[in-house]
């Protein structure tokens, strides 16, 4: 399986995603420069974290017009796996590949800390490898991760299992105190209806080695590998 990590001007977690896939998981990976017009040859596209175009105007707003995004959109339309992490999530929302929007954290501050995620849907390519009830300890680092969708959209998403991760306490309770940014219904990650596009604010690529405080992020990449194997 071959991963592609997109590099926008201002991406800065590209290296971390690359490192996890290549050095920790031993899988194939290449960078994809934002001006590439094709993503042919890749099996999973990762839109990494960072501050594409400085996050000026709105996070992800300018990056979504990069040449590479056209091919990412059609790749996703054909069922290809796309994972957007943090800024990558914001780009996916701006590009219309996922519903809703992300805006300023409720306390107006950038926040960097470990969070616990409750997995709400084990039937996505990104979560199939997880045990039921297993919480994931994965850090966040963002200033605009406050998820919003209008009530109708939210209802639809709940129904079709598009809410994938919610912020929870260390005991797995979805409460206000566990919510680091004001996100609607503690939402930390969502997918599209087809389930092949996932956006999440927490950084699984920062939780792939014991030395970094958690290995849970690896499980998401393992799931991707598993579902890809299964689909062949």
């Amino acid at each position, binding site marked *: 399986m071959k991963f592609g990590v997109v590099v926008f001007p201002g991406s800065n977690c590209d290296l971390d995603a690359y490192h996890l896939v290549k050095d920790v998981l031993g899988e194939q990976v290449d960078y994809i420069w934002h001006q590439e017009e094709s993503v042919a040859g890749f099996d999973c596209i990762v839109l990494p974290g960072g501050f594409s175009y400085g996050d000026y105007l709105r996070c992800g707003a300018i990056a979504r017009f990069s040449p590479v995004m056209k091919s990412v959109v059609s790749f996703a339309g054909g069922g290809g796996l796309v994972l957007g992490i943090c800024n990558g999530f914001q780009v996916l929302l*701006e590009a219309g590949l996922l519903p809703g929007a992300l805006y300023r*954290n409720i306390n107006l501050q950038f926040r960097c800390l470990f969070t616990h995620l409750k997995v709400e849907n084990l039937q996505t390519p990104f979560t199939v490898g997880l045990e039921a009830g297993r919480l994931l300890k994965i850090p966040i680092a963002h200033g605009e991760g406050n998820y919003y969708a209008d009530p109708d959209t939210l209802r639809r998403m709940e129904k079709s299992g598009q809410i994938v991760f919610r912020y929870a306490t260390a005991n797995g309770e979805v409460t206000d105190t566990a919510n680091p940014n004001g996100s609607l219904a503690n939402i930390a990650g969502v997918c599209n209806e087809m389930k092949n596009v996932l956006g999440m604010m927490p950084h699984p690529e920062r939780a792939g080695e014991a030395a970094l405080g958690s290995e849970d992020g690896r499980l998401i990449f393992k799931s991707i590998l598993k579902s890809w194997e299964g689909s062949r």
Partner: protein
Amino acid sequence: MWKAEIRVLLKKSVLDPQGQAVENALGSLGYGNVQDVRIGKYLEVSFDAGSRQEAEAQVREMSERLLTNPVIEDYTFELVEE
């Protein structure tokens, strides 16, 4: 030459944490008479266009494609000929 003066605010249904914070700060600075604060973006875009109509159409298009996010934001604008 036209100058579009675009004001962008969060939709009423979306909580405005920044406005809230400034409202509280004004209160504690002694402006107890302040009832509501909303904070958004202000953009000035200068560009050429043949007519006011054309200019208006272009501002709408730019706003909807790039300058605002219709999921959470509303905008209004004025056009000034320069």
